[in-house]
Structures are given as structure tokens and as C-alpha cells.
């Protein structure tokens, strides 16, 4: 039964496939469809493989065999049979005096007097200056598991005095220890504290400004040219590369506002801070960076507050600000906070602007305020990654695990917040 058999008003001969041809044609189209479906699926799988490879690579670098050689074995450092770990401060200092030259002792004393150093700090010095563990070689996790015998034989042959041991580069000491130029003793304590300082101040500055701008744009701004320019401008700022913010921070906060950011006008006169390359400069730079993000998220949250809520408040004679403060903000807050957390995760992972603003390459002392020199976790990862030695790659891997854990906890927080919020809304309705 086909169209052209009938006497009809169709002048064009039917040249569409019919009957068997039609079925063959459709079958062919389905074959093409299946090939492309497979390609689309494959692309999605490639994305998953990339994520897997990334995580595998990091874990692979963060654990594995190492060949360690100590200059002085810790077993020989016992005093009256008491092992090194249990010695008192004074005993540790005496060990230092015994092994370290007078000149070095004087230098250490002038940096921070021994009397003011904690036991942990002196213990760290004993490890660095006396035991001086040196990691001669390190292997990745997969090699360590599958080629253990070959590696062991290699060590016996080439480094008879070294010990082969399995090392988790990510370990409690790694979190506790400050940075060190000896890979075996290096840790991320200073970097974590630096990140926390920088982020805290970033939030303190960016949150009120971001929320304020969002309230202004959503509640106060009339639809005129100026406000439209502000809105467009915020959207465009969100797309400016982060390194540009770094350059801005370098010129404005580090250089032009140096008296402020170095703390000189507050009477802080820390000799270690030679210029404006401080926690404060970094925080202000990051604050500008996340501000557009924060504003856009907060605007969305405020926009989602139903009109009826506002009208109900006005009907009771409330002023504009009372309405916003007592009704709009409380219902918008969960959304605002979720957006803030996302902005913070962005800021925690930022590296480039901080390098430009002048994160220090080596900070072994804890940052203790907004005017300290600083390094942060991602900057530390960057610096370790750019070193050629394998051991620093292992350290970077372990530091990445710490960073990812931090980000994961933050995002889990955001998800929890979102869920709780949506439950509460359901509870209302």
C-alpha cells in the first residue's frame, strides 16, 4: 500500500523508501545511531577514567617504599637507657650541643632562644641536625607492592647501609610538622595554618560585602543604568582569570597599601615581614576574587524568597530594612551559606594569585596573625611539585590528599546544609 499507487493530488513521484527498502533504511539508521551512542557513552567513561587516573596517581605517589639512611642512628642517642622519644627538653638540648657545631647552635639561638623553644621544636631540631634521615630513593605504591624483591635486592647492592621501609607520606607527623628542607621531616603544618588564616580573613571581608551587595542589588537597586552596569560588571568579573586578581593584589595591597598590609600603621613591627607580602594581602586578594561568586549565589538565594513574605511584613508596618533583616535574610540564609561554602572551596584551592601576591617559598614558623608571612596548602603543593626530586613529588601527593580531604569536608557540609534546608521547607508546607 503506497501513496503513489492511488490516483491522487500528489504530483511528485514518491521517492521515499518503501516496504523492504524502508526497513533496510531504518535498520541502517539505527546502526549509525548505535555507533554514536557508543561514542557518547565512551566520552562519559573517559571523564570517569580521568578522575580515576588522577586519584590513582596521587595515592600511588603518596605511599610506597623508601630507602632511608640516618647519619646517626636514633638507637645510639639513648641517655641512661631512656629512648630518644621520651627524653626531656634539656636532655635533647644536650644531645644537640654534643653533635652540632657551636656556630650553628649560636645561629639557632639567635633565631629563637632555646629557652623559648618547645620540646617538639627541639625534638624536630635533633632529627634534622643530628639523626639527619636521608631518603635516598623512593618508589611508588604499585611498584612497591609488585616489585618488592627487586627493590630490596637493588638496595642491598647499591646502598648497603640504607634501610628499606614502607612509608605512608601522609601520616600524623606530616600534618604536625612544619616545613623542612629535608623531605623525610617535612610537613604541612605551616601550610595548613596559613590556609586557615588566609581563608578566615577572606570570609570575614568577603561575606558581609558579598551579602551586602546582593541585598542592595535585589532589594534596593532600581532598574536604572548604574545598577545594570553593576550587575553586568559583577557577571564579567566572575570570568576574569584568577591571576589577574593576583596582579591587582600585588599592585594594590602589597605595594600601594604596604603600610596597612604589613601592619606598620598598627605598630606591628615584625622583622620577618619585610614588606606587604602578608596573610592580609593574600586574604584581601582572595576576597576580591570570590566576591562576584558570592554575590551571584546570594542574589539567587534572596530572589528565591517568596514575595508574599515581604508583603506580609510590610503589611504589619515594618520598614524595608526590618523586613529584610527579620524575614528575607533568615529564609535566604541557608542558600547564602551554601553559596559561601562553594566560594570558600574555590578560594582554598586557589594558587596562582597567591604566588603572584608573594606567598613565601619557605615558612617554617607558624603564621600568628594577619601580618605574618604566609604560605598555603596549594602554594606548598606547587612548590614541592616544581622540585625535580622524587621525594618532593611524594610530599606533594600527600599534601594534595590533605587538600582534597579539606575540600571534601567543606562540600559535604554544603550538601548537608542544602538537605537540611530543603527538609525545613517541606516541614513548612
Amino acid at each position, binding site marked *: 500500500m503506497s501513496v503513489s499507487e492511488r490516483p491522487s493530488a500528489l504530483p511528485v513521484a514518491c521517492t521515499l523508501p518503501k516496504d523492504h527498502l524502508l526497513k533496510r533504511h531504518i535498520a541502517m539508521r539505527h546502526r549509525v545511531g548505535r555507533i554514536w551512542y557508543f561514542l*557518547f557513552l565512551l566520552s*562519559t567513561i*573517559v571523564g570517569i577514567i580521568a578522575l580515576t*587516573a588522577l586519584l590513582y*596517581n596521587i595515592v600511588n605517589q603518596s605511599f610506597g617504599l623508601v630507602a632511608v639512611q640516618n647519619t646517626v642512628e636514633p638507637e645510639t642517642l639513648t641517655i641512661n637507657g631512656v629512648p630518644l622519644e621520651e627524653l626531656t627538653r634539656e636532655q635533647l638540648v644536650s644531645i644537640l650541643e654534643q653533635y652540632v657545631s657551636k656556630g650553628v647552635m649560636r645561629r639557632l639561638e639567635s633565631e629563637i632562644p632555646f629557652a623559648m623553644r618547645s620540646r617538639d621544636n627541639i625534638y624536630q631540631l635533633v632529627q634534622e641536625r643530628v639523626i639527619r634521615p636521608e631518603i635516598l630513593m623512593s618508589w611508588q605504591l604499585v611498584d612497591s607492592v609488585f616489585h618488592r624483591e627487586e627493590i630490596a635486592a637493588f638496595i642491598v647492592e647499591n646502598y648497603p647501609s640504607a634501610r628499606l621501609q614502607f612509608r605512608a607520606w601522609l601520616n600524623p607527623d606530616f600534618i604536625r610538622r612544619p616545613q623542612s628542607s629535608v623531605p623525610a621531616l617535612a610537613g604541612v603544618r605551616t601550610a595548613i595554618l596559613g590556609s586557615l588564616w588566609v581563608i578566615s580573613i577572606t570570609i570575614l571581608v568577603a561575606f558581609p560585602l558579598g551579602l*551586602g551587595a546582593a541585598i542592595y542589588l535585589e532589594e534596593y537597586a532600581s532598574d536604572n543604568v548604574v545598577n545594570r552596569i553593576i550587575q553586568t560588571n559583577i557577571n*564579567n568579573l566572575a570570568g576574569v582569570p584568577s591571576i589577574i586578581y593576583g*596582579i591587582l593584589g600585588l599592585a594594590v595591597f602589597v605595594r600601594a597599601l604596604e603600610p596597612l598590609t604589613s601592619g606598620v600603621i598598627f605598630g606591628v613591627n615584625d622583622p620577618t615581614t619585610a614588606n606587604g607580602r602578608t596573610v592580609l594581602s593574600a586574604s584581601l586578594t582572595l576576597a576580591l576574587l570570590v566576591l562576584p561568586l558570592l554575590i551571584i549565589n546570594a542574589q539567587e538565594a534572596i530572589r528565591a524568597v517568596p514575595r508574599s513574605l515581604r508583603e506580609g511584613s510590610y503589611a504589619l508596618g515594618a520598614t524595608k*530594612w526590618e523586613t529584610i533583616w527579620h524575614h528575607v535574610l533568615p529564609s535566604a540564609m541557608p542558600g547564602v551559606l551554601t553559596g559561601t561554602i562553594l566560594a570558600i572551596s574555590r578560594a582554598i584551592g586557589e594558587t596562582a594569585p597567591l*604566588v603572584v601576591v608573594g606567598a613565601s617559598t619557605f615558612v617554617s614558623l607558624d603564621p600568628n596573625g594577619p601580618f605574618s608571612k604566609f604560605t598555603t596548602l596549594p602554594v606548598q603543593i606547587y612548590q614541592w611539585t616544581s622540585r625535580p626530586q622524587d621525594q618532593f613529588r611524594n610530599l606533594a601527593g600527600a599534601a594534595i590528599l590533605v587538600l582534597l580531604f579539606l575540600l571534601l569536608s567543606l562540600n559535604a557540609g554544603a550538601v548537608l546544609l542544602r538537605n537540611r534546608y530543603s527538609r525545613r521547607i517541606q516541614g513548612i508546607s
Partner: protein
Amino acid sequence: MGESVIQGFLLFSGAISILTTLGIVFVLGRESWLFFGSGQVDLREFLTTTVWQPAIDRFGILPLVNATFMTTTIAMLVAIPLGLSVAIYLSEYASARARSLLKPILEVLAGIPTVVYGYFALTFMTPLLRSIFGRDVVQIYNTASAGIVMGILILPLISSMSEDALSAVPRSLREASYALGATKLETAVQVVVPAALSGITAAFIVGISRAIGETMIVAIAAGAGPAFTFNPFKAAETMTGHIVRISGGDLSYDSIDYNSIFAIGLLLFFITLTLNVISRWFVQRFREVYE
């Protein structure tokens, strides 16, 4: 009285963004002015010559621009086909269950800091490329490795923006297509994708802008040292990589080096700003058709 103080603060908050933009333009413009006014370099030389060696007063930005172009091109060669395919799969093929499983994975990929991607490029992608193409062919630092990993970084951005655009295409168009006897592929590729084209174009442009401004991956994996080369397996420093390397060291203010990063920054700012404005224009157009 109290309310006007509060309103003042709110207005100030809104104005901060304008100040930021003005700050960027002023700072970049002023230092660039000093750079070009120093007498050691003129604009024509800056934009057209191929040697960047501040030590001997040669400031041709082309090697840096070229390296940026190389990494961006490679990144987009990876991210555009993969990102669009993922978007089509998620929006047209995947079941609700598969979608709810895959989208968080892509979000995780998008949330990983770029320094981690840089690490991934240097410690995974580069060794992989070297084992495939040979250690003599592929240098330790190369634009291919940085570009490919950058593509993976940008993939979620493109796929999620494109998927938003595809999902916004009304169901009635898909039904019209199926009612004409179209297969799923024909509907997806010949009806839905063209209907979402301006949204997808916006995604591509944002992706390109992101790739041009991306810093840490290239700073770690692409190489430290300007080189004018089209070989993706050779080291070459991008604009962003150069800024990071120069400012990462101890930089003395008012040196020509210091000023040069502002000139590079200015160029970078204008390129990305232009791309973002174009992208927003496309999004606007897409919205006008369907909302």
C-alpha cells in the same frame, strides 16, 4: 538614621565590584604605560616579534601568546568533543539514575583545584606521553601534556553548560522530531543540538576563555622559558605561566620585568573579557528564543 547608614554600606558593597574593575584597568594600564614608556620597548615590537628575553631587552610577546594558543587549542580539542558528547549523553540518553550518578562525578572533577591538575599533568600525563611517543620526542615540560590535562579540567564546565542548554530545549521539539520518524540520534544531533546551539557556543567560548586564563597547569607542566614553537612536545611558556614564574621570584618593583607582567596581564584581561562578553551575548540570545 540607622537605615541610611545601612543603605550606605549596601551601596558601598555594590560599588566594590565597580572599584575592582576600575582597579584592574587602572593598575594594569598604569604599569603597562610605564612599560611602554620606558623607551626600552615599543608597542609594535611587543606585539609582533618572537623573542622574549628581558635580560637583553627583547620584549616580543608572540612566543608567550603562541604557547597560550597551543595549550588552549589542545585543551579545546579534548574538551569540546568530549564535553559535548557527555552533555548529549546526559541530556538525551542517560536514565535519571545514571544522571544522578554521573553528574556528581563531573562536579568533583570541576571542583578539584587546578594545582592538583598541574601535578597530574607532570607526574602522570607527561610520563604517559613519553612512554607512547618516546623520550627523545617528548620533553619533560611540554604543551601537549598541559593542554590535554587542561582539556580534562574544562570538560565538566563545557558539559554542564551545554547540558543546561540542551535540557532547556522544549520537549515539544523532540516530539515533533520523533513523530516524523526520526531516530534518537537524529533527534539529538539534528534537532536538539542545533536548537541549543547558541547556548552551546557560549559554553565553548567560556571554555576557551578559561583555558587562556588557566595558570597552574601550564606553570607546572608546560615549561619555564619562552619559546616560539609549534611542536606540542616541546617546552614553551604561556602568558600566565610567565607571570607566575616572574612574580614568584624576588621581584624588585619598578624594574622592567615587574612592569612587563602588567603588560601581559592587560592583554590577558582584554582577551578573556572580550570572550566572556561574547559568550554572555550568546546566552542572552538563547534565552530570548526559549524563555
